[in-house]
């Protein structure tokens, strides 16, 4: 223990001495995270020759800082212009964008930054302290258990549908149907691909994401002069720090919310193959289910923004756990880190903390220091970033469409994906104009294929026995939790209404 503490102190000061790497990388990460289609993973790949030429410490700090900053950066356009930079930020605009539309973009950004940094920092510390235990989560969360986790996220469709049940469910099922396009995960039989090879791997997420949210938003906002109201613009005419402090205060006053939603992200992050998109939707769903004011979600509610942002930053530290302890990368970025570290002769896995403890602890320390630096350097920028919402839509809408089309092209470099983003944009526009919730469609598109994958794996493992869904103790506990999380809010809601009625009587 004493040795570990000494190593941690040494590593902390060493990491701090690399501030000259961390600071520029944070800004690079914010930019690449904010552009749809770009991510820490493909940026590290693009910069691979540079990364490989760096020393082990510098390369490690560079990759980790980029990873954290890009995760946080993805939330910025999601809040300001309804463009989630990555699938992990898909739940962020649900409450972030309504805040920006109401002229509270600065507060929304501050909430997002504080929730991201504190969530990331907290989960990094928890991961560091409980690494051996956390690494075991993947040993218990198999396909059967993951089906229930997916259902937590997908049940959000029902919450959204509560406002207009029929339309919400139609939108959700449409999303699930779109999500089932592509080859099946067992025998690779193509379904609903219309002969397009580009759809064999399923609907690509980024074109669907930017199409449904951003392109359709551009079509909508072009019909008015500004994203925000004239009144809100007048209020924003005199920039001040008050809104930033107000946003930070809102987030800090909900510190417990940050804690538990970021822990959801951490636990989902340590499961190999699960990711930020699952975590953010599950956290949002749980946050809404146990809120005293669920009706405020989707209207610009602080907790609706805190939940996905804390959770997706919790995933960041979570994905490092299986990588360091088991040698199994928890996500795409962790997989590329593995390649780079192996180039430097570092072998991940059970022997890492015996052979190279400084590398193991160093990665978490780099993450913690990056979040600290981000909190101090990025929070003040919310005052200036929020000005984006005051740009007239005649400039903003074409910029959004241009950026998003480029973003749709980047991940796979297929022209097809740009057309697909436009098609999803038209679908999203029609949905908005006819009162269907695009988020319900998107949840189906994102989580549907994952649910199907785990479901087919489970069935294949059991030779088609449907009772496999209830074959695991942990899975059964999760089923009970799922039912409770759906039923309890209704019960609590009734109790609150009864109490309110009694008070008024």
């Amino acid at each position, binding site marked *: 223990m004493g040795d570990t503490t000494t190593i941690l102190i040494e590593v902390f000061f060493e990491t701090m001495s690399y501030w000259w790497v961390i600071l520029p990388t944070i800004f690079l990460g914010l930019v690449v995270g904010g552009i749809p289609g770009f991510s820490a*993973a*493909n940026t590290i*790949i693009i910069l*691979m020759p540079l990364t490989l030429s760096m020393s082990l410490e510098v390369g490690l700090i560079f990759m980790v800082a980029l990873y954290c900053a890009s995760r946080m950066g993805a939330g910025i356009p999601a809040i300001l212009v309804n463009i989630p930079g990555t699938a992990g930020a898909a739940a962020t605009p649900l409450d972030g964008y309504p805040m920006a539309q109401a002229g509270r973009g600065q507060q929304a950004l501050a909430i997002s930054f504080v929730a991201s940094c504190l969530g990331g920092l907290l989960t990094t510390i928890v991961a560091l302290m409980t690494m051996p235990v956390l690494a075991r989560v*993947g*040993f218990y969360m*198999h*396909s059967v258990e993951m089906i229930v986790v997916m259902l937590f996220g997908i049940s959000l469709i029902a919450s959204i549908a509560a406002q207009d049940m029929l339309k919400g469910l139609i939108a959700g099922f449409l999303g699930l149907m779109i999500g089932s396009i592509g*080859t099946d*995960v*067992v*025998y*690779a*039989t193509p379904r609903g691909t219309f002969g397009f*090879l*580009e759809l*064999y*791997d399923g609907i690509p997420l980024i074109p669907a994401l930017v199409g449904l949210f951003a392109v359709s938003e551009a079509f909508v906002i072009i019909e008015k002069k500004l994203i925000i109201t004239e009144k809100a613009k007048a209020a924003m005419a005199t920039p001040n720090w008050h809104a930033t402090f107000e946003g930070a205060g809102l987030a800090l006053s909900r510190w417990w919310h940050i804690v538990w939603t970021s822990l959801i992200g951490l636990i989902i992050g340590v499961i*190999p*193959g699960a990711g930020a998109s699952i975590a953010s939707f599950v956290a949002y769903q749980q946050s809404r289910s146990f809120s005293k004011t669920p009706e405020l979600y989707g209207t610009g509610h602080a907790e609706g923004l805190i939940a996905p942002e804390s959770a997706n930053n919790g995933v960041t530290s979570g994905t490092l756990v*299986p990588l360091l302890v*088991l*040698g*199994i*990368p928890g996500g795409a970025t962790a*997989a*590329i880190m*593995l*390649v780079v570290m*192996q*180039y430097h002769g570092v*072998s*991940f*896995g*059970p*022997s890492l903390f015996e052979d190279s403890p400084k590398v193991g602890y160093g990665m978490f320390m780099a993450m913690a220091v990056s979040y600290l630096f981000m909190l101090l350097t990025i929070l003040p920028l919310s005052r200036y970033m929020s000005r984006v919402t005051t740009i007239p839509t005649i400039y903003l809408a074409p910029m959004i469409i241009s950026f998003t089309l480029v973003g749709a092209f980047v991940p*796979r*470099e*297929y022209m097809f994906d740009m057309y697909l983003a436009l098609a999803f944009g038209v679908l999203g526009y029609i949905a908005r104009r006819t009162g269907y919730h695009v988020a319900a469609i998107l949840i189906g598109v994102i989580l549907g294929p994952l649910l199907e*994958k785990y479901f087919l*794996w489970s069935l*294949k*493992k059991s*030779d088609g026995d449907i009772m496999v869904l209830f074959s695991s103790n942990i899975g059964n506990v999760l089923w009970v939790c799922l039912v409770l999380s759906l039923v309890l809010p209704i019960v609590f809601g009734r109790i609150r209404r009864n109490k309110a009625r009694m008070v008024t009587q």
Partner: protein
Amino acid sequence: MTRTSDFNRRGFLKTGMAASSMALGLPAIARAQSYPEGNINVVIPTAEGGGADRNFRAFTSVWKDKLGTEFEPSFFPGASGRVGYELYMGKSEPDCYNLIFGNMGPEVLNWAMQPPGFDIDDYFYFGQVDKDPCCLFVGAESPLQTMDDIIAASESRKLTVGTSRMAHPASIGLLALGEELGIEFNLIPLQGGKGTVAGAVTGEVDFSVLTSGSVIAAGDSVKTLLVFGNNIVGEALDNAPGINDAYGMNLPEMLSARAFGIHRKAAEDFPDRYEMLSRTFRETFDDPRLMEAYLANKGQPEYLVYADAEECAAFMKSMLELGARYKTLLSGA
């Protein structure tokens, strides 16, 4: 005068044609001699950052000096590599400036399951960079730590086995083993090498089969029990025996083999260019810098094995035959 009269219209035309032919032909000759004039585009039908990417960069870092030009990769991993082959390689000019860096194991096997939209004779592989035998492995904490454990456990239940995808040489290796031992295994496609390793380590499946390079990269988290070929790396694969030695079988090696391919038309229309490509490819293997680059990219030196177009064609043919033989089991048809 007579000589002047000889230079008639026909003579003029003949001379003109000859001159024109020379004029038109010369640039072609000059072009051939100056090949390559630009970068060589290479379609890679797998994702960036993976094993193919690493091997490609290592190999071309030396080959580029032999050929005197740069190689420009483009990654198109969609539809098990079919997007790369059909949409991008298919649409590129057959002029020896466009190559594909594919895997003759899983990718060719996939064609046996689902016939591609192109004639598979449109391309051929002319140079193998490396070959990597598939293997069977368990997680370090698995209760199954030997092949005997696996055989004993399979008597009481059908064991689940992770594989990268159904149409994979490792899957065929396992099915052949099952046939030999009279055991029915339940193959679970875990979508890629990372998932397959994770499946074995975390207990999602009882054990997994995969190309050995990825298994070696997983380090201490896994233990290899059997190689579907020859174990030429010894300790790196836990000294696991080859399947033929262990069970007296006569199974061809189940390999992942990365190779450069080219349009057949390009090789036929530009034989001099093709000759230069294949010659410099061969010469690259004689350069000691290749081994250094390969090792720097964490490649197993024993797996760096040259094969020419003829050997590649034989390998491809054997994969298609194996695919046809096991199609029912691998495609669920």
